[in-house]
């Protein structure tokens, strides 16, 4: 059983426990010793536990490709990635299992539980914009891609180290001054090539 499912079950168990305890409290007298013992657990410990588990579930769950596919703004990127005919960098990494799981997350590690506060704020901004529909298509990446997401896997490999300019550009690559995408292109289809491909989206969900 993977960690997301475990947390999901644990979360449901805590919620169920909370509901049972609420029921007990409702039927008990305010001044009874049972109320005094159960109330802090029901109104403080369990809610905090639910919040922690819930958030952890969201963070962990959002690392799955299926989670990215649920947002129709991201769907064209994910759709392209799972398309075996596509030759984009993302699709080749997916098709060849160069990244075996959590394919979106592996290259976009700015989010997740270990991500920075800024990444959380970014995520919140995206969530709000998506929920309110206050964005315009085509969505374009405005920031700087973090080369570490590539270098973590490629650094030290024979193929990477065999390219002389990777050595002379190392400082620029490590500091993101020159992006990997500057030479190797964007990993996803450009705005003209993006499409949703509903059938495959559904099958992946």
């Amino acid at each position, binding site marked *: 059983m993977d960690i997301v499912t475990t947390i999901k079950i644990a979360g449901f168990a805590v919620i169920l426990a909370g509901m049972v305890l609420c029921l007990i409290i409702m039927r008990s007298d305010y001044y009874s010793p049972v109320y005094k013992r159960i109330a802090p657990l029901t109104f403080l410990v369990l809610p905090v536990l639910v919040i922690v588990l819930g958030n952890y579930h969201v963070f962990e769950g959002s690392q799955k490709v299926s989670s990215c596919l649920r947002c129709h703004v991201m769907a064209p990127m994910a759709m392209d990635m799972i398309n075996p005919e596509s030759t984009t960098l993302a699709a080749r990494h997916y098709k060849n299992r160069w990244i075996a799981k959590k394919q979106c997350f592996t290259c976009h590690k700015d989010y997740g539980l270990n991500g920075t506060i800024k990444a959380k*704020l970014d995520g919140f901004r995206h969530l709000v914009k998506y929920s309110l529909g206050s964005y315009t298509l085509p969505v374009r990446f405005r920031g700087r891609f973090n080369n570490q997401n590539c270098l973590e896997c490629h650094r030290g490999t024979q193929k990477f180290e065999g390219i002389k300019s990777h050595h002379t550009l190392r400082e620029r690559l490590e500091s993101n001054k020159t992006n990997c995408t500057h*030479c190797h292109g964007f990993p996803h289809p450009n705005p003209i090539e993006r499409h949703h491909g509903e059938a495959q989206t559904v099958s992946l969900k």
Partner: protein
Amino acid sequence: MDLTRREVLKLCGMGALGVSGLATLPGCLPSNSPALAETWHKGVCRFCGVGCGVMIGLRDGKVVEVKGDDLAHNKAKLCVKGSMLAELPGLPNRLLHPLIRKNGKLTQASWDEAMTRVADAFQSTRQKLGPTGLAFYGSGQLYTQESYTANKLFKAGLKCNNVDGNPRLCMASAAVGYVQTYGKDEPMGCYEDIEHATCFFLIGANAYECHPVLFERILLRKRQDKRVKLIVIDPRRTKTAGYADHFIQPLPGTDLLLLNAMIHVMLEDGLIQRDFIAEHCRISGDGGASDLAGSQDFYADYAPEKVAERMGIAPSQIREIAYLFARSEATMSLWTMGINQRTQGTYLNNTLHNLHLMTGQICRPGATPLSLTGQGNACGGVRDTGTLSHLLPAGRLIKKPAHRAIVEKLWKVAPGTISPKPGFHAMELFKAMGDGRVGCALIMASNPMQTLPNLRAFREKVKDCFICVAEPFADARTLEIADVVLPSALWVEKEGVYGQTERRYQLLEKLIDPPGEARSDLDILVDLAKRLGLADLISAQTPEAVWDEWRQFSATSKYNFSGMTYDRLRKERGLQWPCPTEDHPGTKRRFVGGDDPLVPKGKKISFYGKPDHKAVIYLRPYEPTPESRSKAFPLFLTTGRVLEQWHSGTITDKVPELSRASGRARFEINLQDAHRHDIVSGQRVRVVSAFGELTMEAFVSDGPKAGVIFASFFDSKRLINEVVAPHFDPFSKQPEFKVTAVRLEKVLA
């Protein structure tokens, strides 16, 4: 503060709403890590003929970042040179002021002083030697407007056809090959053909290093479809060859034998498309052969078993690739300097076209002969505008009276203004500058004192000629022979159009000011025209005005791109000609009905460059190169480029990341030859030809075929072209950089 439970809930809700609302306003919550650039502008890479689209990021009026343009044909990919474009405006050693040679030294001068000196030299030389005493040597790196204006100024204004340039050294054979076979220059195919091809035939092209973005596209195609085959022909086991399914390594100078032997196999085994040939082709042999039977006789001498040994390969290899070429669903040929820089360059180009025409591997998606271009604007800027000594704009020829008459009318000059005699081609031009036939020359955006073959002979002799060089950098070797040096603007410091391999014209807008007093080459030409009293002729004096004049000029020709207005070029990621109207989307595949607007209605294919609309299959015999191996010179030297350096390295060698990656120029020597000469890597060796010698380090590898030495020409301190032979193709006049007989000597410390 007393709050009810309801009020607490209301406040929480309003707070959440407030934060959410703020988050939707730009800048209220941080976006992803901020980019360096404030604004982004589309442009084109400064370097090779692939013509990659780039996005140029500016901050405080400076170029701070460059990345690939995801909407351009290169889909955001760049090679390592392109990825360093942002460094260009800040490179050291820029020329900031005009210089005049006084007492043997170049000293700072004002623009007026320098231009007066140049104009005086032009006037006095014209009086002394006549119009043929003047010359212009341009470049495939000038913008189209600049080449067009120079051509007009010299041919119509000064009545001088000595207009040539560095494209003569790299693309002339390809251009003449296209013209001879199809009647019009420039490839009929496009980059998109790569996605449709099932067989790639790369001959004389190290695309991995010289056209990396296109080569990656080929590799992607191969990865996408396992049936796709890559055939590579090269005397050197290049990085390109490392990806080949079939790699053939013939001796330098013998590959016309290979191409003819492939046709022999095709004829013998019934691999040719007789119907296609009958409908769309005409056969022309030197001995009068004009049909397939005659062809069969001609190619009988090229049976693989007869010629393979001379190439140092096996006959079975020839048969194998002949089948692959002919039977593939769609075969795409790509070639560059290995074919063009040859004394049989035109014949080789003709024969490559023969392979496509005889097998019907043409004018279909993926089936096309696509000549890769060396420089960023050799196609659009020089070949299309006719800025060569035998040409007039839009494919017209100086020697044809009707063509001269049309151009004279369009340029609004008196009939008879344009001289009927073609000018000196590059090799003859520098010879003429040395022997006094040419007394005054303007050189722009080119570095011939590093790139011409048999360099030492030219450099010593041209010193008596008055030479003005317009150049961005103070350390270009050509400045050594200059009497006046004019600082010129570089890349986005000026505005113009670049036209790349697949007939795509792309606009580069001016984004920053040039340093010091540097000016655009167009401004220099306009200034010169004024000083020579030709301001009326050169009335279009801005990039947009020149473009409009040239665009309207093209409407009278098969190059018609009159629909490419400046406004469209500002918006689009380039357009491919023919493009005759402002609502035409451009032409991906030329000569193909339904795509090319110039193909007559109802025709599927029409080679309309020829009067009978038929391409010509020229039967071209192999002749050995003038450089034969002997006891004195038992090896062959071949030259080329490396991934990280662009041409003579004037720009790229100043970028530390590129310079360190390429290292210094060196001799690549085959293991066997190294063993015979007792040479190891890193040792200093001397390579000597009948024309010169050069000493530098050896690099021993299994790259070059045994008997072949390779060296690159980017290093301004190690001039390999001093060793290279000056022979050239009799039709295209392109020099044979690829084959020089040499000997190898160990240098004792």
